[in-house]
């Protein structure tokens, strides 16, 4: 029995020694590549040892707020104005347009594909003359601050893979989420809050689930995991002290615990143990930072009017937008919102009206609010779903009621701030809104562009795992230079 234990001890030591050694050398080598003047004689000039993460070049944006419209909003009712669909209302989609491209199992056995134009009115707005429907009156007011991309496209045709693809750059699960990549690449701005936060809300429309795998750290260190804020009395679960415990007592307990954990780390060398110690420490600091942020009582009335009165009702989309602004203001690197209920397979006009009421005012308010604080130039806001919806009706079709199936080949999102050109409408679809005819933007391209705005080269932000180097953009992704200001 003694020998195997001895061997194990030896193994641990040697293996860890070697792997650290290689990391050290690899790190120094990588560092020398990234930092041009690392080996300059005047080492006093280098202040790199103070930053935990390195941008590759000067960033335009420091933080991201991603307003994810989960379930895929219909581009035809919101941004992609296609009068032809109204003219050909009820006529069959010409085969030349679809050209046999795949459909979901929900419509593939439909005998006809009657075209359905939006029953909602469109108007041009702002100096950019962007078309926005009557469902989004508040968004229409900020078109000159946002960049509308009408030519998004994705690989996946069903919710879960598409959502996973948008969040992690891969359709299969377990890759790190975008927020985790940013946390890994740039570290935290504020040591008292997690660098990646997640906020959920739910509309009345047909919903699709969101799961914690969407904000997973994947193979990255677990400190990069997204932290979900909930709507109840304790936004961050298990953060508060038990009744009767005061802060000094908590401090003593953490010190003791850290000592024990450090002992475990010294014995086994598992980096997850250090991560655990760090997380306890951050949680301790979050105990004062979080209540300061989630306390909405100090928000002026103009903020309430801006985001809509619902913004003070915890758990609503408006409240999450307001909270996102506050978190972002406090240096949280990536804030991911999900608003469920956009999956309009049937009864779309009614459902989408409700969904727009939920999100329109608060989304626009978030952009305006950041702008009036002088923070929009350093905060990137993104609004959009996981794919688009078909130009033809799914299921029951009447003059004022229809449904739309999933459509990954062309859909619309918008971005604002963070060095993205304001007042631009980018990309075009054909007259049927089915295929992209100009400037396609793939999900990988979007990821590359987001990383670029944060000062990261998507081809250089890599992590080696099980013998392969992984990137958020996998082996693809092209910077969309035309939307960068």
């Amino acid at each position, binding site marked *: 029995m003694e020998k195997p234990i001895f061997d194990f001890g030896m193994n641990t030591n040697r293996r860890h020694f070697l792997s650290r050694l290689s990391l050290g050398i690899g790190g120094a080598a990588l560092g020398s590549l990234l930092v041009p003047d690392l080996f300059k004689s005047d080492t006093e000039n280098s*202040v790199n040892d103070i930053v935990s993460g*390195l941008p590759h*070049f000067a960033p335009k944006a420091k933080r991201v707020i991603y307003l994810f419209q989960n379930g895929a909003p219909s581009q035809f009712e919101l941004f992609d104005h296609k009068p032809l669909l109204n003219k050909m209302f009820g006529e069959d989609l010409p085969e030349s347009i679809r050209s046999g491209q795949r459909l979901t199992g929900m419509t593939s056995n439909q005998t006809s594909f009657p075209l359905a134009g939006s029953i909602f009115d469109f108007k041009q707005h702002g100096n950019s003359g962007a078309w926005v429907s009557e469902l989004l009156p508040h968004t229409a007011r900020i078109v000159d601050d946002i960049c509308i991309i009408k030519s998004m496209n994705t690989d996946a045709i069903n919710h879960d893979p598409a959502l996973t693809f948008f969040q992690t750059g891969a359709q299969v699960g377990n890759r790190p989420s975008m927020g985790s990549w940013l946390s890994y690449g740039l570290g935290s*701005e504020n040591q008292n809050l997690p660098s990646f936060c997640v906020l959920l809300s739910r509309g009345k429309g047909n919903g699709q689930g969101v799961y914690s795998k969407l904000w997973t750290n994947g193979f990255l260190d677990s400190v990069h995991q997204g932290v979900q804020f909930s709507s109840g009395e304790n936004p961050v679960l298990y953060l508060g002290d038990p009744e009767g415990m005061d802060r000094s007592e908590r401090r003593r307990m953490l010190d003791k615990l850290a000592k024990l954990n450090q002992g475990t780390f010294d014995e086994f060398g598992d980096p997850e143990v250090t991560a655990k110690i760090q997380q306890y420490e951050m949680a301790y600091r979050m105990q004062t930072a979080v209540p300061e942020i989630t306390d909405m009582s100090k928000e002026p*009335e*103009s903020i309430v009017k801006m985001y809509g009165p619902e913004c003070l009702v915890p758990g609503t989309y408006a409240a999450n937008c307001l909270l996102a602004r506050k978190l972002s203001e406090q240096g949280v690197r990536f804030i991911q919102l999900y608003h469920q209920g956009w999956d309009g397979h049937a009864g779309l006009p009614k459902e989408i009206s409700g969904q727009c009421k939920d999100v329109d005012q608060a989304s626009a308010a978030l952009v305006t609010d950041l702008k009036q604080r002088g923070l929009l130039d350093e905060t990137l806001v993104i609004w959009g779903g996981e794919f688009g919806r078909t130009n033809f009706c799914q299921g029951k079709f009447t003059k004022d009621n229809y449904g739309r199936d999933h459509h990954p080949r062309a859909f619309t999102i918008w971005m604002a701030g963070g060095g993205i050109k304001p007042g631009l409408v980018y990309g075009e679809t054909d007259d049927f809104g089915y295929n992209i005819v100009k400037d396609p933007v793939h999900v990988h391209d979007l990821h590359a562009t987001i990383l670029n705005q944060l000062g990261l080269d998507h081809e250089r932000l890599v992590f080696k795992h099980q013998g392969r180097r992984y990137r958020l953009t996998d082996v693809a992704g092209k910077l969309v230079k035309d939307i960068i200001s």
Partner: protein
Amino acid sequence: MTVRRYLQNWKGVIYNLAFFLNGLLIFLLFFEKSVAIPAWMFPIGRLHPAVLHFPLVVLLLYAFWTMIVEKEGSARWNVELADTLLLLGTFTASVAAFSGFLLSKEDSDVSQTLQWHKWLGVSISIGSIAWYGASKYLLPWRMPAKLFAGAFLGLLLVTGHLGGNLTHGEDFLALSPPNSTEAVNQVSIEQAEIYENLVKPVLQQKCYACHNADKSKGGLQMHTKELLAKGGKNGMLWDTTKPDLGLLINRVHLPLEDKKHMPPKGKVQLTDEEVVLLAEWIRLGSDFKEKVTALPPQNPVYRYAENVLGGNRTGEVYDFAAADPANVKALNTNYRTIRQYAPASPALFVNFYNRSAFKSSDISDLLPIKDQIVAMDFSKMPVKDEDLKVIAKFPELRKLILNFTELRGSTLGELRSLSKLRVLALSGTGINNASIKTLNSIASLEKVYLWSTGLTTEEQTALRADKKIRFETGFRSDTVRIALNPPTIENEQQIVMGDTRVRLKHQIPGTQIRYTLDGTVPDSTRSPIYNEPILLTNNALVIARAFKSGWYGSSSTQKNFIKANYKIDSVNLVSLPDPKYKAKAGTTLIDGIKSAAETGSGNWLGYRDADFESYFYFSKPVAAKGVTVSMLQNIAGFIFPPARIEVWGGADEHALKLLKVIHPALPARMIDGTSDILINASFEAPALSCLKIVAKPIPKIPAWHPGKGAKGWVFVDEVIVN
């Protein structure tokens, strides 16, 4: 001995080969005009760049050696090696010269540089073989040999340099880096010309190396406008009547493997954006003067220009020295983070967090690195007016965020010493118009954020008219009138027991809640104002709305409450429910919880074959006025209101009186979904100790229902006594 002979033989062979090649070379040079090189020999010519470095190095070595040998004895140990070096140098020089000659024949256009390179190369080859042949007489420790070596060194360097110019272009060795287009790009998009600032830099980087005055491959020179427009031996570079826009764009689009693809395989290729630029410039008529701004912004050339001229990845360049990293590290705390603006940039930005941890000294502590800090964010920190005096000591500040700090503005003028300040955010502070005027003395100031300050509408309008500084006044709430959201009714339980009160709430401070209990919609004037939790005396529908000045009244929210004045103490369920729907038997009926309207929730007692029959007891007699039976209806699921309900009561369990009989109305057609039904029976019973309730399922489902003729279900979950 054999080894030595072998070596000598080997040297002899090499020497002979070198002689042979030199001879061949002289012959070919003599008949250069009429020489026709067969195609299969061209690959030998292509070896030139690979071979030439060998003689260069070896001969350099030998020449050096010759120059440093002092006297005969000192060189003995390496004379043999030096001899070998010279021989190898001679041989490879001849190979290089021969292959170089072949290579020079590939191109019909011969520049002056090439001519010089050729003749100098030939002289190296011949000169070195002569040197080897004469090495017996040119003793390296004598002066003639040293002079010869020196001359040879010069020859090698000049020839090598000329060759380098041929392959890499003349400006390869220039002091500026190859990306010298940066300088050209330092024009604004308004002044930029398409050719001069966009097209030319691309050609310069990717084409000039082979198409210039010295090396015009294919007879094409691109370095002047005239020569570019003239084209090469294959004709004009562009032809807009052709679908592929002519030669240049055609060549660019050929597959990389194609011999005619440009730039050739192995050279730096054009990027997709550059190809689009060239094609679009040609399509627009290859104008040499046109400005970028003459194009619509949607044009790809315009976008390219924006990216190249405006898309500055490195950001602002800071010309001050970096701070001592140890200093920066020491000043970083959990509540004050100091970060580098970009890698290798000396500029730092500072963010403050956690209001409760903030002290004024947190600012002055930073003074040792004041010459590096370009941005500070104090959002929500309790920064006071006197702190501005310290902040004014950070001369490099470009951006200063003071949103929602405790500033009143009296010391705002202190900031005038910040001569580089561009952005100042003062939203949510107590500053006034007079103190804002003091900002005019900061010449560099571009943007000031003043949202949510005490400024009047007129003052805001006046400020926005300012030409020099852009004042952002943001969203104004006083002009906006929107509807409030309805209040929330906080009680979870629908049954209000005893003196439990109904609580209403609205999240927006200062909101007035008005409510009614009579089923009418509350209005903003007559309906009672909610000041404290409402005590209900009877079953009631509570309807509430919120009102606030400056807002439209909310829509209404409502909830049906069942008042339970008397708590039932025990229950005796006489008839057993269907085993599928037995819930918690009798206790379910008196637990005070109204179950959700779901058939399968497990909280409903279901009856079909038997009547529902149950006794309820009070430990002290009560003066009840009525009873409410909570039931469920799901017509599609065969769950109907009962056909008949009997309420019995009295002081003695064995002598109950029939207090009330109810025949609930039955639906006359299909009703979708599941819903609650509350059946109220009122009566007078001054001293009630026991109550019996009987509910009979309908014996026959009516004919319009798919299950006609079958027995209906009855679902019960609660009995409430008033």
